[in-house]
């Protein structure tokens, strides 16, 4: 199996080479990539419950070789990777036609896909880090496709710096795990027993390394810059898939390579997840660039996933709470799958809007539901799913996370008792703010009247893009109404990581899920859907029988003062204004100055609003300033004589020998 999967990866690498020489838009290249990824997704799904497989290839470091391993955890994430890869390649068949410089996308896109697959299959530190950096570099090249755009350049720079930080932290983490004499193969790390202090240090480094890739606050700053800058199929992959690969890396290190971490580490992850979720969605609400809004939502959803992972760590550390840990982990995995589905869908929709109107600015959208009805419908499904509305899939995973949170107070220690309900409050806040945000995203972009000529003349997107969106929308729907099947599929992963799984749900009728006990809580996705469908039919039929059928089209009523100018509509900024006023002063240091003309004057009033990114000011600016100062201080080293340089080389050599002598 693993050989077949690697053959697929090799095909993708070959496509990357072909992409470097091929002329034109590369539609067949995308088609092949989509097909390969689709096959690979099926294989991953099949091998989810299978026994782990390992393979060592004589590549890489001569004494280490290149280790691969396909176990349930990597099979699940390979499935997520390949679903995203297949759908985004399908989307790109149509979408890539509009690319101005396809030569800047075609070599790197299959390379990115191959690197994503390699990361989840790698089973030693060297091949893992190699694939990890390959993934970062390939996506960096794709972020810089619009290489003349100043914002893209900045995004690429910040992304590169953060990717370096992430790689460095992971390198140190693996170094600690391997120990002084250990091997870099994961199988050897699993057997090594690092000292507790070192294990915690390695865990924190892993949290930094993977958190910087996943977008955990405060390491998220690069994400809303870089993700929107890339072409939309790449944005979907970066947001929907690459962040999940980072989640995979964290799970791999925290659950399989390290001894069981203490409970406080789990609480730290839970708390970080809660803060990430709320800050991510609040930042998203303030955006009016559609793709940037979606990127900030990725930060939010990563927070939700990390709440689940943190809870699983807390329960695992408590001992005897395997069932609760399995519930929390299943919730996190379910959200991983869900987010990869609907975030890709939403980025495709945003890409289609971008191509149709020539802008990602929501303030220039409006009325697109008439011009792009199918895109609008699929985008609406994605919005409802990400807003956790039943009966779609986003609700199921957030519901499961909540059920896991409700088990937290049962723990004897006081830390979890206090922190877990607070994390629950943060999760609830994030979920309701997400709904608000997607009312805005859909309402301002697709509803209302067109705010620009481009929006008024937009045309529906091509059929490849539409089918990619349609497939993902159907998957969102199916995962929502048959949650039990999805949960059962996760059982091998949970068993591999925790030694326990959520109780099987397949003996229950329809789509019922009962996480703990029937008297405690239950949710039936398919029955809820059928119930909604039935009462809708009843309402429509009732209205048909009882009500008058006449429909008359007329100008909008608007309290008797309809103004035909589209500028009188609510904009994205004005829609978010109440929420900005409630949360803004604390979190963004938001300030608004209103300048009213004197009474009687006909001059327009003016409002000026300013938002601060406090996290940027607290975390990044000082670091950037320090680095700049250091660089300035080191600058004069550049203009020394050759004797001075030779002296430095000699001094470094002596220092190294000295250190070696001390260690012996």
């Amino acid at each position, binding site marked *: 199996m693993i050989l077949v999967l690697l053959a697929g990866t090799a095909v993708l690498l070959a496509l990357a080479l072909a992409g470097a020489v091929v002329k034109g838009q590369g539609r067949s290249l995308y088609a092949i990539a989509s097909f390969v990824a689709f096959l690979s997704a099926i294989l991953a799904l099949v091998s989810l419950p299978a026994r782990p497989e390992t393979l060592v290839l004589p590549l890489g470091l001569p004494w280490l070789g290149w280790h691969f391993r396909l176990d349930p955890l990597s099979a699940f994430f390979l499935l997520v990777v390949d679903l995203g890869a297949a759908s985004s390649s399908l989307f790109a068949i149509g979408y890539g036609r509009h690319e101005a410089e396809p030569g800047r996308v075609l070599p790197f896109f299959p390379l990115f896909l191959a690197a994503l697959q390699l990361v989840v299959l790698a089973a030693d530190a060297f091949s893992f880090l190699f694939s990890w950096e390959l993934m970062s570099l390939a996506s960096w090249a794709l972020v810089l496709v619009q290489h003349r755009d100043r914002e893209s350049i900045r995004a690429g720079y910040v992304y590169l710096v953060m990717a370096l930080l992430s790689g460095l932290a992971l390198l140190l983490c693996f170094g600690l795990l391997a120990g002084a004499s250990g091997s870099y193969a994961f199988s050897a790390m699993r057997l090594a027993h690092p000292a507790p202090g070192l294990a915690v240090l390695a865990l924190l480094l892993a949290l930094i390394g993977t958190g910087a890739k996943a977008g955990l606050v405060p390491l998220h700053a690069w994400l809303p810059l870089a993700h929107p800058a890339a072409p939309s199929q790449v944005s979907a992959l970066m947001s929907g898939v690459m962040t999940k690969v980072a989640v995979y890396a964290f799970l791999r290190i925290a659950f399989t390579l390290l001894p069981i971490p203490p409970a406080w580490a789990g609480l730290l992850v839970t708390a970080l997840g809660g803060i990430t979720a709320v800050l991510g969605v609040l930042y998203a609400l303030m955006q009016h660039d559609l793709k940037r809004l979606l990127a900030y939502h990725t930060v939010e959803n990563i927070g939700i996933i990390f709440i689940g992972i943190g809870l699983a760590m807390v329960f695992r550390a408590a001992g005897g709470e395997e069932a609760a840990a399995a519930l929390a982990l299943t919730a996190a995995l379910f959200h991983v799958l869900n987010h990869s589905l609907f975030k890709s869908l939403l980025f495709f929709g945003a890409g289609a809007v971008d191509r149709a109107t020539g802008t990602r600015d929501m303030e220039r959208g409006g009325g697109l539901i008439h011009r792009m009805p199918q895109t609008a419908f699929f985008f609406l499904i994605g919005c409802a799913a990400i807003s956790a509305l039943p009966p779609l899939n986003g609700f199921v995973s957030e519901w499961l996370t909540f059920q896991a949170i409700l088990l937290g107070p049962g723990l004897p220690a006081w830390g979890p008792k206090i922190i877990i309900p607070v994390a629950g*409050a943060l999760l609830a806040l994030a979920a309701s703010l997400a709904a608000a945000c997607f009312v805005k995203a859909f309402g301002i972009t697709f509803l209302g009247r067109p705010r620009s000529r481009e929006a008024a003349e937009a045309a529906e997107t091509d059929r490849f893009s539409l089918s990619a969106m349609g497939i993902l929308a159907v998957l969102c729907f199916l995962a929502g109404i048959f949650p039990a099947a999805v949960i059962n599929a996760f059982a091998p992963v949970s068993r591999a990581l925790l030694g326990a799984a959520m109780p099987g749900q397949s003996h229950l009728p329809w789509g019922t899920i009962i996480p703990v006990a029937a008297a405690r809580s239950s949710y039936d996705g398919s029955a809820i859907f059928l119930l909604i469908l039935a009462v809708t039919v009843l309402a429509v039929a009732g209205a048909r029988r009882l009500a008058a059928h006449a429909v008359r089209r007329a100008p909008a009523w608007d309290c008797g003062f309809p103004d035909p100018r589209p500028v009188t*509509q609510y904009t994205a900024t004005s829609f978010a204004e109440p929420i900005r006023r409630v949360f803004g002063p604390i979190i963004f240091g938001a300030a608004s100055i209103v300048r009213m003309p004197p009474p009687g004057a006909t001059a327009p009033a003016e409002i000026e609003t300013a938002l601060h990114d406090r996290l940027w000011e607290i975390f990044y600016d000082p670091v950037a300033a320090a680095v700049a100062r250091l660089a300035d201080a080191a600058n004069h080293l550049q203009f020394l004589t050759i004797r001075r340089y030779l002296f430095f080389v000699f001094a470094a050599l002596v220092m190294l020998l000295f250190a070696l002598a001390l260690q012996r």
Partner: protein
Amino acid sequence: MIGPSMIGSVAIEAVQMGFVLLAAPGLVGIVRAVKARLLRREGPPLIQPYRQLARLLGKEVVLAHNASWLFRTAPYLILALTWAAASVVPTFSTHIIFARLGDLIVITALLGAARFLLALAGLDIGTSFGGIGASREVMFASLAEPAMLMIVVTLAIAAGSTQLSSIAAFMLSPALGLRISLAFALIALGIVALAENGRIPFDNPATHLELTMVHEAMVLEYSGRHLAMIELAAALKLLLMISIIVCIFFPFGLGGMGAAGFLTGLASYAAKLGIAAVLLGIFEVSIAKMRIFRVPELLGAGLMLGLLATLLLYVSRSL
């Protein structure tokens, strides 16, 4: 699976779904009548809401030129989602077939879905009033929903369940003492219920043509049968929130079995609804509507009460 108990619970469910839909406008009628009497007005007759619905159903629909399919389908879906949520709540008997379909979180989410659609419908025509209503509604909801979920957390810790029938059974159990947490949860739930239904002090259901309005601003463009669906859904939501409160905090007469239990359950439920409507009417005339940006403070207080109720639960348990 199919036995007499199942047929019984299907029948009870059918009665409940019919009852809530038919009783909802009546509940609004009682509230209006109480308010009118307290203001020394004659007030409309109790059946006025029914007449209004019948009149709206008889009228033609006037649609704006740029109304989309979303605008036309939303009223039915909003009613359906609210009705589906109401069919999961044990109102007069815990033996309803749909009780296992979802817990209190699912009910909250179904109401959230209805609100999502309503806010979108408010934005569809592209009028400034729709935008005002939608943006304010989501601002209220962004605080009211977490408050609701914190109440759920409190109840789940106390009762060991988020399932309404289990919570009701727990509240009926004699072991239950007075708990400060539950009092906090009741107050918080009251605040949430007022906010969810757009009652005073959050919104005034009787206003039109006023810049402070929220719900009415969103539905301004609706007419005819569409408006009838939305009005019915709003009435149903009021009844639903009251039903949740009485199911959790005053579940007397809920656990009965057989025909006698069924009838006492129904009678006590009707009585509880009536009392709640009168209390709501009294409350609404004795308080003024808040300025819009004072509302988050009250909702934030509700959220804090919910969180405090959770944390106090540990302390009161260890006492």
